[in-house]
């Protein structure tokens, strides 16, 4: 379809692949594009209509009206008598009260683990339907199953609860002080999460001697940055249907992992693994929601199904889907350098507001920064990091797209920008002088490529001026440019914890292909990567993506273990294994053909759907004929391989922003964003661009508009809705220029690196640095609302 002249002017340049490939790296529609555009794909809420499950009941859970309270007594008798109510479970019922204390962070999502091996086993602070409410809207006390959601809600109102209202605390600094209300005294007597086996001690990185490093520095800068708890805001609210018939439990879920959900339910309810079946179909956006999905609501919904003998559906309303959030962090950073820009020492300290439950707090605060130290900070001789996770009575905070990295980038990009200014250097030069990774030399080629390309695309040299000293537009508006950069994650070697990635390829006698590479389809584009990778690897059969079927449903009873949609890594992890499996397919096919062609397999080869003698390519037969004249059995290859652990470092990502600040109103408008990812190998260009562009909605939202607001007097959150929690719409978003690069290369067939999460990571800091460049005043906390700008300008 041709566009008008005015529209043609914005036609953009595609990236140039390093290696020309047939399918990998293509600009093309997603494999599910037409089904999705036509509204044909079905999400869990769609497949669990009452018309499909006529006996289905609806569950609703009681939520605490108080930020911190205990249930002294509970009387559900009136609720039980309400017509249409089929079951009520309360915290006093033995099947509820006997459930083990748990955590919503069993694993970091890459592997499946048991109850004993759960990641944060020292922080088992969650009770399933307990009597202790730790934040306003916490799921506590009772759950009801009824013929309709309205009846269930009415029944909840009839439950009489005597509350013991407890003092609460929202601010982590306040919560750390002696005398503050203590939320989980058995785990954290002063609300500060104790040292743990995974994250390590409070000082969790201590390389060289940071203090001596600062003493050697000619210039030292110190900074503060505060990242808040934005929420994932998937459109597809949490939803599950549990059907517990006789001794077997089936769950339809929109959790992004199936195998771990099965383990969680099996372990918590004491069922054999094969008596729990979890089916995950399409999921309407994930973004880290629910940590690893080890959610108590699966369990109480299951108990209601057991009690009633009927399928029970539980779904969140939008309000209830404000269920978890990014880990807020107050970071202080200090960096010292010699006059020539060589950094001698870095120190970072974070205080994280864990909210009511620990979950993956320490993953964000310690695990992610530790990884960054191993790569980006590898050439800095002295680095110290310390961190404290603190319980408060706020919404629990955990994983969200770019877990821990977004928060760290906010301070990292801050100190780099400040140091460059103090040294009188261009921050690009300062970055290239100091940051790379352990397995490479400085300047890092990947970092250099993303920063140089970003500078070119944003017009860095023309637009960057002294802070606040640029031209004024419309009498009151000032513009500025800024950037931030970050090491990408994850390269294949960083995914070793996953263990085997298992896939199965079936080549049918007509050469049609079924690729069983299970992963829950959350929209990331890995499904299309999978199919492109499979087509690439099986190109010798003469097949293309259209010949390959990829089952989109993960069913723990019939599928292989799903490769969980975490770490932005699924897109290439499965393709690496597929490439190996394809070699086995080829070998099996050659064996079949050798019998028919009266040859030895070594003398034969296959290309474009034909088997031929290497010495006499004219003597050949089609692959289809090999099947047709042979045994007509499909070739099935199932293969599991751990990720390639060869350490290859990581590539870099960066965002460049241009903003316009209205100095009279404080309004910040982002004019342009350039999003740069060195992908190693671009697996699927359109999908990668969609991630780059798409991530900016979260990035710009976190930077400027999205914020959960609490009533300080009561601790009650005030804006659990999408009118007052402001997600950017199309009208709010700037021009976005996505840049895909292939500079770094990892091990393996493709040597790719994940990009999805990282697209969000640098946006807030790039915007903040651009704001500083525009107005010459620093704002340390996001979201940057107009009043903060006016305050920074001394106008409020």
């Amino acid at each position, binding site marked *: *379809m041709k566009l008008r002249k005015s529209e043609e002017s914005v036609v953009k340049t595609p990236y140039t692949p390093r290696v020309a490939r047939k399918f990998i790296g293509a600009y093309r529609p997603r494999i599910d594009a037409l089904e999705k555009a036509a*509204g044909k794909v079905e999400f869990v809420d769609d497949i669990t209509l009452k018309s499909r499950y006529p006996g289905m009941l609806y569950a609703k859970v009681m939520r605490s009206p108080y930020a911190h309270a205990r249930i002294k007594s509970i009387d559900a008798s009136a609720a039980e008598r309400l017509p249409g109510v089929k079951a009520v479970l309360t915290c006093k019922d033995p099947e509820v009260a006997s459930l083990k204390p748990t955590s919503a962070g069993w694993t970091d999502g890459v592997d499946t683990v048991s109850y004993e091996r759960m990641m944060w086993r020292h922080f088992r602070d969650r009770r399933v339907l307990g009597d202790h409410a730790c934040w306003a809207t916490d799921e506590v006390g009772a759950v009801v199953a009824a013929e309709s959601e309205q009846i269930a809600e009415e029944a909840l109102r009839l439950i009489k609860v005597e509350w013991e209202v407890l003092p609460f605390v929202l601010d982590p600094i306040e919560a750390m002080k002696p005398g503050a209300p203590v939320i989980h005294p058995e785990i954290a007597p002063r609300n500060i999460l104790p040292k743990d086996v995974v994250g390590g001690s409070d000082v969790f990185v201590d390389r060289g001697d940071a203090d001596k490093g600062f003493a050697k520095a000619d210039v030292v800068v110190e900074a503060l940055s505060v990242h808040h708890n934005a929420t994932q805001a998937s459109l597809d609210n949490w939803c599950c249907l549990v059907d517990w018939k006789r001794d077997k439990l089936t769950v339809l879920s929109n959790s992004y992992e199936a195998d771990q959900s099965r383990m969680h339910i099996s372990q918590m309810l004491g069922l054999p693994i094969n008596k729990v079946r979890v089916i995950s179909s399409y999921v309407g956006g994930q973004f880290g929601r629910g940590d690893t999905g080890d959610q108590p609501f699966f369990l109480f919904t299951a108990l209601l199904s057991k009690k009633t003998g009927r399928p029970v559906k539980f779904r969140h309303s939008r309000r209830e889907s404000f269920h978890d959030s990014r880990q807020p962090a107050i970071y202080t950073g200090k960096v010292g350098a010699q006059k020539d820009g060589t950094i001698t020492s870095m120190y970072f300290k974070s205080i994280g507001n864990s909210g009511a439950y620990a979950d993956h707090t320490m993953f964000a605060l310690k695990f992610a920064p530790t990884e960054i130290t191993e790569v980006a900070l590898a050439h800095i001789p002295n680095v110290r990091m310390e961190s404290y996770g603190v319980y408060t009575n706020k919404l629990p905070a955990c994983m969200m797209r770019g877990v821990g990295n977004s928060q760290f980038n906010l301070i990292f990009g801050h100190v780099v920008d400040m140091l460059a200014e103090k040294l009188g250097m261009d921050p690009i030069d300062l970055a290239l002088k100091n940051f790379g990774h352990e397995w490479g030399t400085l300047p890092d080629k990947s970092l250099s490529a993303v920063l140089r390309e970003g500078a070119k695309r944003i017009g860095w040299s023309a637009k960057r001026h002294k802070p606040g000293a640029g031209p004024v537009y419309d009498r009151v508006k000032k513009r500025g440019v800024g950037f931030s950069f970050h090491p990408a994650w994850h390269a294949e070697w960083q995914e070793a914890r996953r263990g085997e990635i298992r896939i199965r390829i079936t080549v049918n006698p007509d050469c049609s292909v079924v690729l069983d590479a299970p992963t829950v389809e959350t929209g990331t584009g890995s499904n299309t990567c999978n199919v492109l990778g499979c087509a690439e690897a099986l190109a010798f059969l003469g097949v293309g993506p259209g010949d390959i079927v990829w089952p989109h449903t993960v069913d723990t009873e019939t599928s292989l273990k799903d490769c969980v949609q975490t770490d932005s890594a699924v897109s290439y992890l499965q393709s690496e294994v597929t490439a190996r499996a394809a070699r086995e397919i080829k070998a099996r096919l050659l064996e079949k053909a050798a019998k028919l062609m009266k040859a030895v397999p070594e003398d034969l080869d296959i290309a474009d759907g034909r088997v031929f003698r290497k010495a006499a390519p004219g003597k050949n037969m089609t692959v289809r004929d090999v099947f047709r004249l042979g045994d007509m059995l499909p070739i099935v290859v199932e293969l599991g391989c751990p990720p390639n652990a060869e350490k290859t470092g990581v590539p870099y990502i960066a965002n460049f922003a241009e903003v316009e600040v209205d100095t009279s109103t404080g309004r910040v408008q982002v004019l342009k964003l350039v999003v740069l990812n060195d992908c190693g190998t671009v697996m699927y260009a359109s*999908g990668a*661009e969609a991630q780059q562009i798409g991530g900016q909605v979260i990035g710009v939202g976190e930077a400027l508009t999205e914020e959960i607001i609490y009533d300080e007097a009561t601790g009650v959150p005030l804006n659990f809705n999408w009118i007052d929690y402001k997600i950017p719409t199309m009208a709010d978003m700037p021009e976005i220029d996505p840049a895909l690069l292939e500079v770094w290369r990892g091990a393996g067939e493709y040597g790719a690196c994940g990009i999805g999460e990282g697209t969000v990571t640098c946006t807030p800091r790039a915007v903040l640095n651009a704001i500083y460049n525009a107005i010459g005043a620093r704002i340390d906390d996001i979201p940057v609302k107009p009043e903060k700008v006016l305050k920074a300008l001394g106008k409020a």
Partner: protein
Amino acid sequence: MAKRYGKRAHGTKNTPIKIKINGQLHEFEVGRDLEPETTLSCLLREKLGYTGLKVACDEGACGACTVLMDGKAVLSCMKLAVEAHGHEILTIEGLPESDPVIQAFAKQCEPGYGTALQCGFCTPGFVMTAKALLNENPNPTPEEIKEGLSGNICRCGCYSGIARAVQHASHFFRSGQSAGQASHPAHGIDGKCTEHASRGPAPKGDKR
């Protein structure tokens, strides 16, 4: 004015609610098939199985539940089912896969703009909003597209691809017009929505 299939009065037990949905006339009895407070989204999804529209916020903030009423975009979570009495409703199930807007959303992969969808949850709402926009304004500028689709949220963030897809679809509408193939762009692609296409813009306040 739109052609009506029943009297304006509705909501009583004795007056059946008549709604034409995707070309088929349905009759509902209040108290038996629906309640006075039943939302249009609930009727369409839960009772009739039109699950293409999604309920993500249930309070008019996200656009995922958008359907067309007499060719105009309405938020079905903010409309009572009884308010649809005498009106024509078009859900995404009423569009053929060959619909130029669906095709444009599906095919968008032009370099620099990404795809027009990722998880696909908001997509039916965007498609229907885009249909209404193009019904009203077959030749929107990029700014008009931004304005017209700013009542819909895509958390995957495919706004660039969506805007591009709508531009492509509008081109299809225009060229279809000149070639005399498609029906008048102000009509629904199924040719069913007719007279009301000349109505003014949708009432303000219907969208975020």
